[in-house]
């Protein structure tokens, strides 16, 4: 049964998620560039936003949905997609509020899985797929990035150790601009397509598209614009955490971090493992700091981040399940449910922003932390 009001709400919610995804993940590409002054903060977010936009068009082989490997696609309805998106948005906002880098992709998968569990039970979720394609790679990715970045920086220091620091710093800053651009491009390719997949899934579930249809151009363009706008807005709170709170890095460490992150992400992408850019970059930041001196890493901050990673799936799942449950109180195929959930979401967002802006020091703004 079609309900175009629900579909419009789902599409709008997917684009809001895409915006928060860009906003939340800006740090992955530019935090190290900003902290080593390879680029001015506002120029860095503009650079990253443009490359995220371009990345959304590089590969148009869109998956049916980011969660398709983990759930039974036959049970999916627009309300389930909506519940999953709300769970992911709420988790992204909660981690932004506390300045914690966490995976937007895991939040989206967790949200959708939570909504599916409430709608159709645990039988509609593939535990094996979650373990093999998500949890095990999620454990390996940050450790791998840690080791690779650590070895890279040790080798780099050994090679350039006897040179004058000025030209070396300028050289690595140039390298950071290139590797940061590569990360932004990869982020646009991976993450904008998740939103395209979610919107396409909702269009199919609502009967607006055939199951084998190509993704419409308006979906591609709107997802690219939303992630680029989110990236340009810049999640400065998380940029501060990744760029300066874990370690105080120099330009060689920044280059080693970004180069290692890009290598791990592209190698994993090539072999079909959907790694979290956030986990990889954060692991690489810790690795490049620990290789120089173990005490250079603020392990308390690192511990908080890892804690957030561990609870991302269950927390986003609980929020997604709750959002779907509230939606279903109003009955199937009734737009009142999603409207009530959106009003509740806007209230939570308004409360969080008002509280954050009232705190001493006020909001974190571009350039203030660089």
């Amino acid at each position, binding site marked *: 049964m079609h309900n175009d009001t629900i579909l419009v709400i789902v599409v709008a919610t997917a684009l809001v998620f895409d915006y928060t995804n860009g906003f939340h993940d800006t740090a992955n590409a530019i935090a190290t560039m900003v902290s080593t002054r390879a680029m001015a903060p506002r120029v860095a977010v503009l650079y990253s936003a443009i490359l995220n936009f371009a990345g959304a068009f590089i*590969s148009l082989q869109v998956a049916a949905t980011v969660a398709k490997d983990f759930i039974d696609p036959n049970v999916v309805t627009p309300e389930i997609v909506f519940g999953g998106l709300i769970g992911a948005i709420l988790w992204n906002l909660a981690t932004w509020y506390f300045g914690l880098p966490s995976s937007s992709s895991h939040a989206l998968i967790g949200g959708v899985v939570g909504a599916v569990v409430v709608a159709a039970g645990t039988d509609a979720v593939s535990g094996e797929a979650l373990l093999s394609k998500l949890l095990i790679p999620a454990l390996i990715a940050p450790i791998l990035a840690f080791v690779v970045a650590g070895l890279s920086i040790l080798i780099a220091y050994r*090679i350039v150790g006897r*040179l*004058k620091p000025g030209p070396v710093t300028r050289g690595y800053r140039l390298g950071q601009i290139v590797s940061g651009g590569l990360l932004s491009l990869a982020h646009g390719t991976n993450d904008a397509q998740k939103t395209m997949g979610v919107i396409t899934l909702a269009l199919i579930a609502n009967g607006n598209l055939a199951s084998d249809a190509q993704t419409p151009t308006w979906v591609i363009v709107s997802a690219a614009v939303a992630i680029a706008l989110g990236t340009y807005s810049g999640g400065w709170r998380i940029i501060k955490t990744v760029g300066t709170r874990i370690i105080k890095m120099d330009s060689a460490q920044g*280059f080693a971090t970004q180069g290692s992150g890009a290598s791990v992400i592209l190698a994993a992408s090539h072999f079909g493992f959907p790694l979290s850019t956030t986990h990889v970059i954060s692991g690489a930041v810790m690795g490049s700091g620990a290789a120089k001196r173990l005490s250079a890493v603020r392990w308390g901050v690192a511990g908080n981040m890892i804690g957030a990673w561990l609870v991302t799936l269950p927390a986003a799942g609980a929020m997604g399940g709750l959002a779907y449950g509230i939606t279903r109180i109003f009955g199937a195929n009734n737009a009142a449910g999603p409207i009530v959930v959106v009003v509740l979401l806007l209230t939570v967002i308004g409360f969080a922003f008002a509280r954050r802006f009232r705190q001493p020091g006020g909001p974190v703004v571009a350039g203030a932390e660089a």
Partner: protein
Amino acid sequence: MSLATIVDWGALGKVVLYSMVAAIGAATVFSFAIVGVVRFDDCRRGARAGSGIGWAGLALICGLIIAAVLVEAIIIMASK
């Protein structure tokens, strides 16, 4: 089912190997490019033409390798 059968350890092993080779290789080559540029500049200032050409050659070769790695990375993104 055990972890050994559920997880494609072979593919994960390749991810580990390729990541290490690419990241450590890129850091090494880029660092040598910096060495080449800095040493060439030192030679130019000291008017030592002979060894300057060698350092310039090192920087050029390393720059070309980095450019090739970037092109390969974009091809991987586009073909996934």
